[in-house]
């Protein structure tokens, strides 16, 4: 756990996929401490990941954990949510998150518990506060500005801007070092990234990679990757390249620049292809 800005603590996730040895602690997760309360962002990838985060919070402050942000539907960010039940927090998510969790929680839970063991995830945790466009969370003299994004990394991305530290808590709208995974809309992600770049943030907290980068410079690699993916996939579609052949040939110039590239790039191309072939 490192204090990336005063009162803003983040735990760096490992650049790996879920395995029995990493407990799905693969996302950057942490918390923001205000004068009156704490907001968690995000809760982690398993119940025990969430419990460790909760213990870390308690080592820093006895203040109530009033909010648990759920930045999007992916398991490495939301499966720790159940660890905060006793705090009776407000679970905060994008307006599209309940539908996404309904469709996916069980699928993800089965697959995560197949690796980590029974009862490592628990029953679904639904957001109790939905953000349609914007919202503010007041932690007592410290306000988090929330933005519900159009489809980008997923269809339910929520970012938080901590005005006090001038830090954008981007979650998976920002990948650094670890290859991005596309599960929403490629064109949408580029649009949302452009919006985020115009924020008056000096630093950003990526969902994966280092826990703090300069902003907007820290988004350059992601933007370049997404542009290469967009151009390459469009070109493949135009040339009549089949979807599976495209998955093996598009964006390979990015290969040396990202961790886990071979594990995700093909999927990203498939996703981009499905989106762009309808243009």
């Amino acid at each position, binding site marked *: 756990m490192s204090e990336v800005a005063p009162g803003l603590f983040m735990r760096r996730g490992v650049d790996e*996929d879920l395995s029995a040895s990493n407990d799905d602690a693969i996302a950057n997760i942490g918390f923001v401490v205000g004068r009156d309360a704490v907001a968690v962002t995000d809760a982690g990838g398993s119940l025990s990941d969430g419990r460790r985060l909760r213990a870390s919070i308690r080592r820093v402050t006895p203040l109530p954990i009033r909010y648990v942000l759920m930045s999007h539907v992916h398991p490495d960010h939301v499966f720790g949510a159940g660890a905060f039940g006793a705090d009776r927090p407000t679970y905060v998510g994008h307006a599209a998150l309940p539908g996404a969790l*309904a*469709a*996916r929680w069980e699928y993800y839970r089965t697959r995560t518990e197949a690796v980590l063991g029974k009862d490592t995830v628990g029953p679904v945790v639904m957001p109790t506060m939905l953000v349609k466009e914007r919202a503010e969370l007041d932690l007592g003299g410290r306000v988090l500005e929330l933005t519900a994004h159009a489809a980008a990394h997923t*269809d339910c991305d929520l970012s938080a801007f901590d005005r006090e530290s001038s830090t954008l808590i981007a979650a998976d709208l920002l990948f650094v070092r670890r290859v991005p995974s596309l599960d929403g809309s490629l064109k949408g992600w580029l649009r949302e990234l452009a919006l985020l770049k115009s924020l008056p943030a000096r630093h950003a907290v990526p969902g994966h990679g280092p826990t703090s980068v300069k902003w907007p410079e820290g988004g350059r690699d992601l933007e370049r990757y997404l542009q290469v993916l967009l151009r390459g996939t469009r070109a493949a579609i135009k040339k009549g390249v089949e979807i599976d052949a495209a998955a093996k040939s598009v964006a390979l110039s990015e290969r040396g620049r990202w961790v886990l590239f071979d594990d995700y790039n093909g*999927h990203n191309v498939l996703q981009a292809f499905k989106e762009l072939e309808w243009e």
Partner: protein
Amino acid sequence: MGVTRSLVLSMLVLGSAALLVAPRVPAAQDDTAAIMKQHAAEDAAERAARWQSLQQAVFGGRAVQEGAGVIQIETPEHALDAALVPVTLTLKPGTAVKGVYLVIDNNPAPVAGHFTFGPRADPAVIKLRVRVNMYTYIHAVAEGVDGKLYVSQQFVKTSGGCSAPVGPDNTEALKDVGLMKLHLLGTFKPGKPLQAQLMIRHPNFNGMQMDQATRTFTPARFIRTIDASYDGAQVFHLDSDISLSTDPVITFGFVPDRQGTMKLLVRDSDNALFNHSFDVPAGSG
């Protein structure tokens, strides 16, 4: 045609060892001990027996001969996405075929599709995308106009495609249902075979996607038939089932004798009808 709940449940259990889709774990990494154990459990003899009984069920004991030279099936051996496995069927030019069956042996409803060809068809190359629930043989069987059956097979190592969520949100997935596009993949010349790619917006819910909020499976709703005709003459009829991927994309050949209109009629399991007409050679829509 539908899938019984008990079958669905058993297939869910079988498919459950696949890892996460997002953050995505590629098929190559699905080779965890659990999955290897599960899939190794079915040995060659069992697979052969399964295909034997499928032949009996689908073709009523008619002889099915080795199809080399008549039909060839191509699929990636390790599909990246079990819910989107591209399949290419190539038929020897000039072979007089009545239709083609695509059988995914280990899927809950193994007969994924049955094409029958009309007078305007050019059954040279057919491409489609399917869901694969677990390691399986996929068989393509061509039926000649003389009634003879020819088979080509391919083994596919991927799993979990049937219960994979359709999209982040099931409601969203039905938004543009029935929208279609047609791309001509070559140059139009009257009387010459032409390949076309048909794209259909349809979630193709197969009844195996869980909705956690209601603790139920999203009801199956999938494309049952597609009819393509050109200026009133049939190109193909497809009987399909729950194994077609979400937003099906089907490539097929036809012989346009003149400028005309390709008509598509799609019917799904809710009996919703979707109609589209495309001018050829203008294409697309």
